[in-house]
């Protein structure tokens, strides 16, 4: 019996030993497999954003930008996120939508700001999108939808405007995997708790989306990229229950008023 166990251990050790030894070789470069690096993502982000900003109108009104930046600053600083990597842009559009682009570009529609009942709702959506960026979901989604080779060709400037348009359309109007959405929700709740912002308004916002689904078309944008709103609201509430004793609003009343007034300017 001892001999059998010994021989079994030898076999297992042989297998793992061989695997670990082979692992030390950089097979990716041996087989010349293209690998996605942070640098590639930044380049893709820049290409997509450069084209996107030409087709849309960005709100650069200082009052609005400062207000929204202060929410993002608070979420980032309390969660050890490098603030430099997140670039927030307000786009003047009535649709209720926000989405993340490669390279840390976070696009927020003015329609989302005006439709939010309080700053915590907006902070919730921002935290959710920041989670997608931080968890690397954006590139995962793009690799799945358009393929790695198309993405790599974008960085060398070989792809046409149509491809880039298609990529930005995917980013703004198609959904992430359910698994990735849940991951982003949970991480958003953690971000909000660490920043001492109440996560419940995010759940309320999702309920609102689910209820307004039939009546208002403007709600469809964020809804099309975020299905199962009701279910998500439920687990966000369950996850955030009793975790914060004395949350502080994401923005003061004055700043919130200024942001709402200037969002669509």
């Amino acid at each position, binding site marked *: 019996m001892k001999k*059998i166990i010994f*021989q079994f251990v030898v*076999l297992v050790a042989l*297998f793992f030993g*061989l695997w670990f030894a*082979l692992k030390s070789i950089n097979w990716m470069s041996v087989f010349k497999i293209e690998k996605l690096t942070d640098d590639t993502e930044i380049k893709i982000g820049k290409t997509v954003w450069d084209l996107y900003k030409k087709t849309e109108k960005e709100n650069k009104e200082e009052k609005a930008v400062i207000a929204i930046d202060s929410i993002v600053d608070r979420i980032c600083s309390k969660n050890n996120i490098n603030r430099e990597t997140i670039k927030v842009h307000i786009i003047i559009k009535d649709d209720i939508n926000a989405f993340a682009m490669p390279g840390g570009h976070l696009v927020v529609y003015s329609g989302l700001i005006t439709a939010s009942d309080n700053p915590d709702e907006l902070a919730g959506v921002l935290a959710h999108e920041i989670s997608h960026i931080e968890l690397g979901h954006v590139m995962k989604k793009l690799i799945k939808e358009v393929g790695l080779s198309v993405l790599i060709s974008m960085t060398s400037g070989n792809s046409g405007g149509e491809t880039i348009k298609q990529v930005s359309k995917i980013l703004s109007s198609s959904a992430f995997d359910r698994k990735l959405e849940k991951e982003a929700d949970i991480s958003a709740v953690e971000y909000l708790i660490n920043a001492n912002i109440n996560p419940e308004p995010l759940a309320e916002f999702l309920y609102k989306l689910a209820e307004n689904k039939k009546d208002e078309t403007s709600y469809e944008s964020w809804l099309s990229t975020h299905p199962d709103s009701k279910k998500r609201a439920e687990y966000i509430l369950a996850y955030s229950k009793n975790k914060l004793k004395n949350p502080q609003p994401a923005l003061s009343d004055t700043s919130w008023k200024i942001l709402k007034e200037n969002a669509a300017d």
Partner: protein
Amino acid sequence: MENNFEYQPSDHEAEKASNSYLMSLIALIAGMPLPIINLIASLIFFIGNRKGTYFVRWHCTQALLSQFSLLFINSFGFWWTLSIMFGPETISSKYIAYIITMLIFNISEFIATIYSAIQTRKGIHVKWFFYGNLTNLICKA
């Protein structure tokens, strides 16, 4: 591999024992994409011969047991490949190293199986490292 058996098997026995390896060899080729096929094929052959003579039963058991470790190794590789193709995983050096290790183990098993099929056909007993001792433990005369 060792070559001692309690008695000299007849030609008929040698043929059957040799077939058990051939069976797992064919299944190994057919089962490459779906590893479970190897095991099922060897299992059917094993059940079919469980009332055979000691020499036949012994080699059927060894052929079956040797499929088990490949089943685990190949299944893991199979699901890893699927998750790269359709899931969130991306190709990495770790994955390629695993696939190469998996191929080396499959090829070794392939060669050992061919060798065993030839030797047992001649009536020569072949006892594999680890699997032979395990078979001795399970398969009684």
